[in-house]
């Protein structure tokens, strides 16, 4: 049943991202990429190789949608690779956490820290790979900061709301 739940969740996240969040452009300076929520909330017990493969598939789904094959994939794989490392370093007693990762399961501050670092890394990779040069590095940084802030705020809003 767990994998059916995850597939349904992925479909909902894809639809929300494509139909709603992709259109929340802040004057061309960025938009929230809330689909990282799917990767962030994945169960902690999942093997790391499987987590990275799921990240690659999720990234590719959005690449196809955004006509930027490989960009989201690279960023999502990095997100999935660093998530267990960060969770292990930032969270005490991670062993006792069962199932999905939320602020209620690992603590709000730890959750925000982990989410923020991973989101910034993910967004920085997406915008850097799209620009493919550091000629306009300040623009990449501004886009990363604006989009990351929006993404984190929306995900935290959801996290509070789901309580």
């Amino acid at each position: 049943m767990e994998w059916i739940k995850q597939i349904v969740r992925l479909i909902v996240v894809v639809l929300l991202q494509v139909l709603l969040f992709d259109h929340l452009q802040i004057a061309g300076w960025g938009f929230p990429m809330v689909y990282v929520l799917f990767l962030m909330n994945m169960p902690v017990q999942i093997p790391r190789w499987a987590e990275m493969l799921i990240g690659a598939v999720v990234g590719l789904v959005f690449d196809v949608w955004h006509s930027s094959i490989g960009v989201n994939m690279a960023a999502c794989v990095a997100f999935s690779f660093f998530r267990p490392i960060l969770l292990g370093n930032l969270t005490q007693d991670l062993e006792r956490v069962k199932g999905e990762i939320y602020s209620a399961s690992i603590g709000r501050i730890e959750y925000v820290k982990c989410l923020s670092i991973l989101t910034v890394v993910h967004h920085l990779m997406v915008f850097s790979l799209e620009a493919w040069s550091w000629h306009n590095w300040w623009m990449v940084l501004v886009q990363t900061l604006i989009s990351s802030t929006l993404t984190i705020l929306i995900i935290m809003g959801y996290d509070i709301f789901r309580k």
Partner: protein
Amino acid sequence: MRNLLQFLTRYSNFLIFLMLEVVAFILICTNNEYQQSAVWSSANRVVAGVEGMKTNIVGYFRLRTENEVLTAENARLKEELMWLGNQIEEQTERDSSYLYSHLDWEYIPAKVVGITTNKQHNYLTINKGLRDSIEVDMGVVGADGVVGIVSAVGEKYSLVVPIIHTKISISSRLKNNGQIGGTAWDGRNCHYVNLTEIARHIDVNQGDTVVTSGLTEVFPEGVMVGEVYETSLGQGDNYHQTIVKLSTDYKSLRYVQVLRNNNKQPYGMD
């Protein structure tokens, strides 16, 4: 062998991570035109060929719309021809220099086989290349006005840098008063560019036509760039902040013409 297996087991996650990142980078370099051109610094024949095939297939299903667009363009060109004929008759002397300047240009028709509009460094690929006498730095225009400048040429395809690229600026002038400035894109909306260097004492109004200045050897004088959409002037500003709505809609651009300047001076011969 055992050590190798131990190494692979120990670092398996990192190796999978590296492998997936390499796959992603290969996908980026083979499927995204801008990154591809940056990597190979030239138009890629295979991708452009596939894009051309895709465009041909899609184009077949759009023939009806294409016909309507071409018919409308034909009608507009006929009107323009009649207007030019009248102008020549009535003002032969005054217009002769302008007319001759346009006769120096040769138009090479081409089809757009690939285009990006959502990046800061946008590119478009056309189905004409070296064998059609296309050269780097030739101007490219569409039915509605300026499109861009050829930046790389392959055997059958060429890469064009459009105005909606943050590293390009095109010399332009306001048609009603002849004031010259530069049009450049700020990387935001693909329908608008900025017109710079128009001094504060010049009268700039919404709806004023902006055309190419003819000061460079890339475009002839008077090719449509767009219309002034918005203009503002702060108290301490010496120049107008002018936004121009581009006449060319890159999202629906299908056919272009590459401009060959037959009077172009070779380098070093001014």
